[in-house]
């Protein structure tokens, strides 16, 4: 076991490999507040990468309802139950990671989903917490006792992937150029150790080719400076494909660095598991802090507060407005004169978005004639 630095835990941890950081790290930011679970992302991914025979149950991208939705069934509650109760001391994780808690004879603490666990991708869809008799679905102030929200899920392209740790053949690797985690399709022998080890359950077994496959971070697009299929298909404009620096190299002009390290509004998914996942979530503003903390770690309350105040924060608002505004990957951005602009690596402008769309206010009345008589009122375009 090597000692590696996991900044999300605020400490060093044990990992089977030295795992030097890539030159830059693929990341995705998800604004959970904007998602309506339309699954446009899921279909964009499915129809691009996994519509082959043998991939029927594969959803490299999926949207699930929390707290009762899972794909595969129980993916998060099962590993949390296995790991047991753990604790944070402020921003430092005092508990055990799934590497540190590995039982004798195993590299990673994991569990193996059954076939049927992969068969219900919409399990729990739109199910809120609480009983309708006891409360109301219409939000009270500050929020109803009933809540649910949508969680957008792709491979986390972790800094310390459990799939890499568990593969006895080293058939899974993390690309040094962008940190995307891939299964070598020529090297895999179908042992499915990755399916047991990945706590996010984002490696899957192809029934026809008998090897594991997973989200490839749309690397052919990323290599051309383009955002992923799930990002560009998102009608809620809630995703951002970007690159993330380690915290000590954070650059406030870079979108992901700004959101994750500077403003700390986007948080990792189950950081306590110890993989340093690289998909970051702006937490939902209407969900109890206790639930959000177990899922996104420390800093949830501050992130929610910041999001609630985004309307008065032109810099943050401007960056959120740039989500979904371009297919290209932003290198830097700024906000000037009420316009948010994104730039490529040469500093050339990719796209510009006004913080407030220009509007024209029409006079209330207009006049026309119907059957020779004057009529006033709104004009309808129907």
């Amino acid at each position, binding site marked *: 076991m090597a000692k590696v630095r996991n900044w999300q835990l605020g400490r060093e941890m044990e990992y089977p490999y030295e795992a030097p950081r890539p030159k830059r790290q693929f990341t995705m930011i998800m604004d959970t507040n904007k998602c309506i679970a339309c699954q446009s992302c899921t279909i964009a991914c499915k129809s691009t990468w996994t*519509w*082959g*025979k*043998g*991939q*029927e*149950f594969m959803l490299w991208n999926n949207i699930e309802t929390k707290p009762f939705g899972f794909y595969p069934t129980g993916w998060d509650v099962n590993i949390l139950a296995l790991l047991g109760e753990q604790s944070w001391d402020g921003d430092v994780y005092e508990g055990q990671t799934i590497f540190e808690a590995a039982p*004798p*004879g*195993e*590299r990673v603490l994991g569990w*193996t*989903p*059954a*076939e049927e666990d*992969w068969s219900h991708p919409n399990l729990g869809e739109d199910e809120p917490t609480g009983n309708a008799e006891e409360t109301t679905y219409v939000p009270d102030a500050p929020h109803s006792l009933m809540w649910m929200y949508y969680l957008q899920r792709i491979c986390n392209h972790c800094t310390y992937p459990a799939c890499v740790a*568990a593969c*006895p*053949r*080293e058939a899974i690797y993390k690309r040094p150029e962008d940190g995307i985690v891939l299964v070598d*399709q*020529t*090297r*895999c*022998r*179908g*042992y*499915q*150790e990755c*399916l047991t080890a990945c706590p996010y359950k984002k490696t*899957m*077994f*192809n*029934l*026809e*080719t*008998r*090897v594991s*496959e997973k989200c490839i971070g749309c690397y052919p697009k990323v290599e051309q400076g383009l955002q992923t299929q799930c990002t560009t298909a998102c009608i809620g404009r809630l995703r951002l494909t970007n690159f993330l620096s380690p915290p000590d190299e954070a650059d406030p002009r870079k979108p992901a660095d700004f959101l994750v390290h500077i403003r700390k509004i986007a948080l990792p998914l189950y950081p306590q598991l110890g993989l340093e996942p690289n998909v970051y979530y702006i937490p939902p503003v209407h969900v109890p802090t206790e639930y959000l903390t177990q899922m996104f770690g420390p800093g949830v309350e501050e992130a929610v507060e910041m999001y609630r105040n985004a309307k008065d924060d032109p810099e943050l608002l401007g960056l959120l407005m740039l989500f979904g505004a371009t297919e290209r990957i932003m290198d830097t951005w700024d906000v000037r004169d009420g316009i948010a602009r994104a730039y490529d690596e040469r500093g050339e402008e990719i796209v510009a978005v006004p913080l407030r769309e220009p509007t024209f206010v029409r006079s209330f009345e207009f006049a026309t004639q119907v059957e020779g008589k004057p009529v006033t009122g709104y004009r309808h375009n129907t």
Partner: protein
Amino acid sequence: MAGGKITRRDALVYGGAAAGGLVAGGAAVAGLAAAVDRRKLAPVVEGAPIVAAHVRGELPVDDPDAGAWRRPRRIRVPLVAQQIVQPHLERTGVTELHARALHTGDELAFLLEWEDGEVDDLDGIHRYHDAVAVQLATRRGPVPPLTMGGPGAPVHLLQWRATWQRDIDSGGKTGVDQIYPAVVHDVMPDDVLPPETAQLYWVGREAGNPLSRSLRSTPIEEIVAEGFGTVTHLPNQTARGFGVHEGGRWRVILALPTARAGVGEALAPGTSWPVAFAVWLGSQDNRGGRKHIANWHTLAIEGPR
């Protein structure tokens, strides 16, 4: 169907519960016949070398009941759960296999038999296959590490998988339609795209992974390795074999040319070699390093009579 007898191949290719029932019945009869035959065999011996008896003509590679297989002694090979490297096999599911060997001078074959009440011959999600492997040193001299060799100390491996046997017995019908017989497909790439484009959606196959093929000519894979996790598929595959499940046990024949061109020294008559074995029980989640292993045994290749 040949001569009115429904074979396993018939059942796999043509399907149907009736054919399946007949085959199961046939297997039971065959199992009984095998039990009667086995009574004629000499008792199983432990601790003695596995002597590859010399026979003339063709080796009975697809018939474990052939008369030639009565000649060599059956050697009991103890098996233990692999707990040398992670991941370990936690629970032992089979404690021994019985090994026999024959050779013609040009080809050498093992007949390996072990108890396994369940046939696991499809690879699915959390569904693993039965398998067996033979491990041989590539050259004479120091015995390589038991752990599938070590750096600079390669071993030569033959692996048989039940899935590959079914690939052959069924003509490659071992995919989604067999794992889930009631599956209903939406439009698939091969329905709407030219074959060369549709093929791209079977990435493992397109990338040339030999494990991703379902059409194959032998159920045996020939491998070299220099330690756990280093299995390398040999470009020139020369092994052949056959496996059948009868009376609650697998009976598998693995044969290879004795010349071992490009792999190591020839398995010449009159020489002895270290040999080891591994067994996987799919129903007990065995796969990869989660397997049963045997210690090194001696393979003595009989000189011509």
